[in-house]
């Protein structure tokens, strides 16, 4: 396991959101986390990334308890987080955004190499190297946010709703990139509203309801009647 979350209870200050959450991810896996709005999906990612209050349980990353580490320590350990909502530095250029992705290193050669890799994966970013973040389209901003995370050379990538607000075509493109990233030996934990697509690209899926894991399974989870009626019906 690259990550195991055990009996996690977490929230914000006195406001408890997650209870008894258990999630595991293998180093070569894409794991999807789906569930209704407000179920606590984003909170799971934030809790791994040290941005919540944790009341109990453990988060183990490659045999190391990371429950109490801060974000910069986690980045150094190889965990990258792409928050919900195409978050880029809008007043920084594409190049500067990517440079900031590699903030934890000052090795200029390494940064150059990483940037080349990111440009190879997202050619559109290369065309926009000197444009400001706010001047990009929604899809380009999502790619920039992901590219920024890849600058950190993560072993575990946490993605929060990367398809939010994107057209079906762009969504497909982004999902294909996620598969590519995973094939290059990065474990991915992806939170999605777009349950059908997420289940399709994921090796395993967890369903979160009301702060608890309600259901888990492999690709065949699509055949589960409950999943069919709640998450796939009408879509």
């Amino acid at each position, binding site marked *: 396991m690259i990550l195991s979350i055990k009996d996690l209870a977490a929230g914000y200050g006195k406001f408890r959101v997650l209870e008894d959450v258990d999630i595991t991810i293998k180093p070569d896996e894409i794991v999807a986390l789906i569930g209704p709005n407000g179920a606590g999906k984003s909170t799971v990612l934030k809790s791994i990334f040290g941005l919540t209050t944790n009341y109990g349980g453990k988060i183990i990353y490659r045999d190391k308890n990371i429950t109490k580490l801060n974000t910069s320590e986690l*980045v150094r350990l190889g965990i990258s987080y792409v*928050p919900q909502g195409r978050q*880029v530095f*809008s*007043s920084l250029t594409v190049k500067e955004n990517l*440079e*900031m992705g590699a*903030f*934890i290193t000052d090795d200029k050669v390494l940064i150059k190499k990483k940037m080349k890799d990111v440009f190879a994966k997202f050619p559109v970013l290369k065309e926009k190297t000197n444009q400001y973040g*706010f001047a990009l389209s929604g899809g380009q901003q999502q790619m920039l946010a992901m590219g920024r995370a890849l600058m950190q050379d993560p072993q575990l990538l946490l993605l929060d709703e990367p398809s939010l607000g994107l057209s079906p075509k762009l969504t497909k493109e982004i999902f294909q990139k996620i598969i590519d990233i995973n094939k290059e030996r990065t474990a991915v934990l992806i939170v999605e509203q777009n349950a059908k697509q997420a289940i399709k690209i994921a090796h395993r899926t967890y369903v979160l309801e009301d702060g608890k894991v309600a259901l888990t399974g492999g690709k065949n989870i699509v055949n589960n009647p409950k999943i069919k009626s709640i998450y796939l019906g009408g879509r």
Partner: protein
Amino acid sequence: MSIVVQLLINSIIAGSIYALIASGFSLIYSVAKFMHFAHGAVVTVSAFILFFFAGMLKFPFWLSAILTIIFAALFGLLMNLLCYRPMRKRKATNAVLLIASLAMFILFQSLMIAVFGADIKTVRLGQISTGLNVFGGIITELQIIIVLVSVILLVLLWLFMKKTRLGKAMRAVADNKEVAQTVGINPEKIYNITFMIGSAIAGIAAVLIALEQNVEPNMGFSLIIKGFTGAIIGGIHMVPGAVLGSYLLGLVENFGIWFLPSGYKDAIAFVLLFIFLLIRPQGILGIKRGVNNK
């Protein structure tokens, strides 16, 4: 003709001083997102520190100036560490931080009166020169130095923000603190550095102003009002805007007294401030950003 040249020279000198104050003020505002009015107290206290070293202890001027600038940087850092940071930890709003900054302003201004007295002090460097004649206007060597130091410092600050890893990290925190955190930037560290840089610039301004004018307990108040006005006019979110606004303020003030009695000089600044706050609060260079700016 020569009066136009003289007013222009006076505008540039005033603008340079305002720009030094406004740049630090808007730098801190853009990164930490609140109005650090106690920035004015950094100027006042630093000027007194210069007077203490150069005037009372009779240290060589260059040494006194360096000590003053170091003092200013540490003073700003301590204000952040001992006042603002604990308040941020308790989730104080930016309005509360602003009030705290006003309280510190009054505290340190009073402290200067208590320690040094309310009378006017002077720090002078060599003989008072008669000044150089430039196209019919008069400018002293010190005033030339003020303009040059100001321009050089502002260019250096701009290069620092644009080209260095630390400068970019400061802009990243200014832009989106949460995302900055996700790439491993510690915002609190960036705040510390920002306060040190902004306050060091205020310290340099204090040295120049102490030489050109006088050292008195309320000097920081009018200066921070002018710096604030310059920042609002040009765009407080970005240092280049604040600098532009400061020079504009210098121009309007100095050419305004061509038409109005000179007693109205400060009033001109306030009128301009009100006009901008009402009509274009984001300033000349400021853009109203859409949904992308969180």
